[in-house]
């Protein structure tokens, strides 16, 4: 890929890559590694994208697949307790820190669909294609994730 086109896409979407990876891996350090790897693949790509939406879809899909491989890695399974202890990002408001902690406490499959749906604005069908899951599985995960977050905050209020 041409340098200028790369810099344009990388600058615009590196945060998207980082957030997708962070939601999947729950480790800022590993998410940064994923950003580097995905951007290198972008740089090595020989052909242009049909559109910017195509580029964004490609970047998210490559990120998801890369993170899936990381999650499956036997090396990671042995070391994850150390990386999971990484510091909580600094948020402007306490409420945001709580929401972040609650979301990150969900299992990975719920975090990822939540992010793609709420933040990136992908439809259920597009998320199914991005994650290699069925449409019904994505719908169920979204619904359960919302329920889990709702019940967490309801319980917190009661306490």
């Amino acid at each position, binding site marked *: 890929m041409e340098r200028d086109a790369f810099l344009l896409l990388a600058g615009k979407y590196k945060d998207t890559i980082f957030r997708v990876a*962070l939601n999947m891996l729950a480790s800022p350090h590993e998410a*940064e590694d994923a950003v580097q790897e995905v951007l290198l693949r972008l*740089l090595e790509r020989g052909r242009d994208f049909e559109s910017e939406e195509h580029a964004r879809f490609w970047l998210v899909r490559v990120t998801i697949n890369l993170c899936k491989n990381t999650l499956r890695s036997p090396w990671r399974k042995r070391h994850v307790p150390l990386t999971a202890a990484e510091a909580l990002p600094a948020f402007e408001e306490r*409420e*945001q820190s709580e929401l*972040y902690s609650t*979301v990150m406490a969900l299992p990975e499959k719920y975090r990822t669909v939540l992010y793609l749906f709420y933040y990136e604005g992908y439809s259920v069908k597009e998320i199914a294609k991005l994650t290699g899951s069925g449409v019904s599985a994505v719908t169920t995960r979204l619904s359960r994730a919302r329920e889990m977050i709702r019940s967490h905050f309801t319980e917190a209020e009661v306490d």
Partner: protein
Amino acid sequence: MDKNKYTDTFSQLHSSVDETALAARKSARKRFHAAAALIAAAVMLLSAGALAVYGRSHSLRELVLNPTPPVSAQTEAADTSLPEGAQDSAAAQPAKSVSYDPLPEGRDMISLQGYAGSPEHQAMLEWSEFEHGYDRSGEILLEVGNEPTPWYEKYCYNGYLVYSQEMADKLDEITEKYSLSLHSGGIQTGTVTQLKKVFGDFTAAERWGGYYYSDGTFQIDASQDVPDFGIVDFQLRRTMKGFFDTVALNINDAEQYEQWEYDTACGVPVLLALGPEKALIFADLEDSFVAVNVLAGQATPLSDGSGGVTREALEALADSFDFSIL
């Protein structure tokens, strides 16, 4: 859940990766590789028929290696009788009657080692032409019979069908010419799951099995449920670059295939080809060449009885492989 709260929270997360530094680092590496590529390209262009140009798209035609029968062989082909004294032997051992007729038009054999211009493809092309014109009457093979030969250990055990010194010499000549190594050490067999332990989680398939060489070349026969489509049976072969491999595939008529390039989910671009009875996936990787032979095409039902392979199904199957770890 409040969508605004969610987006406000996650919008505060940023990557610290410096894309400018990444591009600069890559450019330095690219300049080195470009110099090497230029030298390699010059060498390749000097070789007869070298066609590959770095970075351009490929086609199925670049894999076809139908040998052209030599003039003397074409004349011999009209005479299908066995050599004198061989008839009795052949009658006693009918399994040794070997046909060496040229392939009829529309039956294309393809290389699974690399595209035209690569040393692996050129080597396979030369071997294929030699083999096709060699011992066309089957006389030498009949003499050898089924007894172990002096060439068995080095060649046959590792997949090369060599049964004479002349063949062994030719094989050595070709590998030396293209600086390729022979497979060695014999093959190891295993289930798909066992092979995935050796080569990584490159496929979602779990069923059936395959074999591999110690150099990393391997083949699996597998079966996989492609979401929203059905059960697909396929063969996947990874051939390591730098090694001489002689496995070819009959695809019938290459002109009958619809072809397109596709970016797989793992980020590796592949060539997809969809024909009436077969569907194919090719990935030209840094260290190896991967070919997937789907045992069904547009006009053939899958093993579970569902309809033929579609473009979408072939793309979904391609997405299910992780070519980036092969």
